[in-house]
């Protein structure tokens, strides 16, 4: 499903570079042993004493919630309406969420709580890869 291509900035470049290598990484604070996403300049929990690194995660998660988009504001997605937009909780920390169209899941048949596995999808304009999630098991 063609998506807008994210334009990385200084803060997000490591995340998007990893996606292009088909790896999912998130920021990790070695001081408070906590991950956070989206990336921020400082640790949400213990700034200014934090030491932030990038950490590769499993790419496994569960479906937390969803909506079915019928009238999208984003032009490039409008030809594919209606479509699923799920929120996926990361296995390592359910507080960390990612959006997903849940490729392979029929529209409006989203299984809350189902296990999902990350995959990577190439966006058409720049070729930047983005994380997507597929229901497994």
């Amino acid at each position, binding site marked *: 499903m063609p998506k*807008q291509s994210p334009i990385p900035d200084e803060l997000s470049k490591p995340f998007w570079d990893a996606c292009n290598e088909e790896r999912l990484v998130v920021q990790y604070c070695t001081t408070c042993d906590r991950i956070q*996403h989206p990336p921020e300049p400082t640790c949400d929990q213990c700034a200014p004493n934090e030491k932030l690194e990038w950490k590769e995660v499993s790419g496994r998660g569960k479906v937390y919630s969803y*909506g079915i988009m019928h009238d999208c*504001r*984003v032009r490039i997605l409008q030809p594919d309406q209606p479509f699923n*937009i799920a929120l996926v909780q990361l296995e390592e920390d359910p507080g*960390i969420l990612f959006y997903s169209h849940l490729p392979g899941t029929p529209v409006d048949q989203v299984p809350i709580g189902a296990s999902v596995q990350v995959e990577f999808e190439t966006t058409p304009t720049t070729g930047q890869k983005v994380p997507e999630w597929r229901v497994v098991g």
Partner: protein
Amino acid sequence: MYRGTEGLGVWEHKGKVAAVGIGHSPTDRRWDLRPETSVGAYAIIALRNAMEDAGISPDQVDGLVLDPSTTTGAMWPADRPIPDEFSQAFKPGANKVDGISSLSTEWLVANMPELSNINFTMYGTTCMSNAICVAAQAIGDGMANTCLVLKAWDNLEGRYAQGGDNALDTIGGSGQWSNPWGATGPYYPAHWFTSYTNKYGGNHDMMAPFVVNSKRNGLLFPEGFWAQHRPEPLTVEDYLSARWIVKPVNLYDCDIPITVAVAYVFTTAERAKDMKQKPVYILNHSEARPKPRSVELTLEECEDSAASLGRRLYEGAGITADQLSFENMYDGYTLFHHLMMEGLNYRGVKQGEGLDFYQTDISIEGPNPVSPSGGNAGSGRTRIWMHTDCIQQIQGRAGARQIRIPANTGVSGGPHPRGGDFVVWGSTPD
């Protein structure tokens, strides 16, 4: 200016600031490019109406608080010339679109020479709720004595939020985390509602009594868009058959963008004693600025924020939930109104009980009125009806919308749950 944490105690200015005047402009669906229907012209109408309603002369006003942003979503293109008729009708502001697609205190004072004694100005951004809190605190702190509080909206041509970043094939900034999946607009109340029904049970059909009731109350609001232009009742069948926007958000769960301006007159409780209208006292104000842990506020984060907000509002006002006569929390989108109602513990409604409560008598005639203003659903996208209604209900001036039980204490505010400002209003200062 803002009160955002628990444990602050009773607001130091409780009952020392009062609303004493209300002024509304007409409403329109779109601006027709005539200067007399511009957002600037409507702002001036609203301000003059508010002063007349309060029975004060412009030279008695020393404060002006407003939100400079007026757009409902469409912007005046930077290269589009300003209409000649508009330029001839008004003095220009520092921003060339002042009066068309923004407002400034300087533009208003320049075009309202009768406001000759303004010595305190401040912006309360985002919506009227914010401006109200700023003005109330400013008066309490002695920065102004009699203050105009203004919020205006312009609705230019074009579909709502369809341009800008949403029309591009690439996306930067904060949108890089959400736009590629189209998680915009009413996606957030959609996923909250999905989570809510998954957690507590219930379904979207159970929203019908609330939305139908809100539309009914809106048609009893003569200042509102639907009452003025399209006085069409909404039936349960209309609601249930409406097209989806982001399922489970349908068309009637969204509000209609309009052009309008609304102003209030606030003053000290002492000064309010001899004014034309019955004073409505501000018992407390509070802000809510929940920060999501990740890409979006979860239902649980939203519920925690709403519960904390409820505790703060009562703590600062020195009241308990059972003292509320009615509630006018925000409803644009309708699918999160019950979350704030639960946060208030209104009529004892706890988390997970809001949809069931909607199946009881929530009308203005009953003992448990919910959103008697009708909110945005009832009168258009302004985020002000709830405040006007609180003032009018407590003054006994809500007309056909007047709740049947005594209207002594009300609460209004928004656009929480993702952030907002809130007010507790009372018929007496204590």
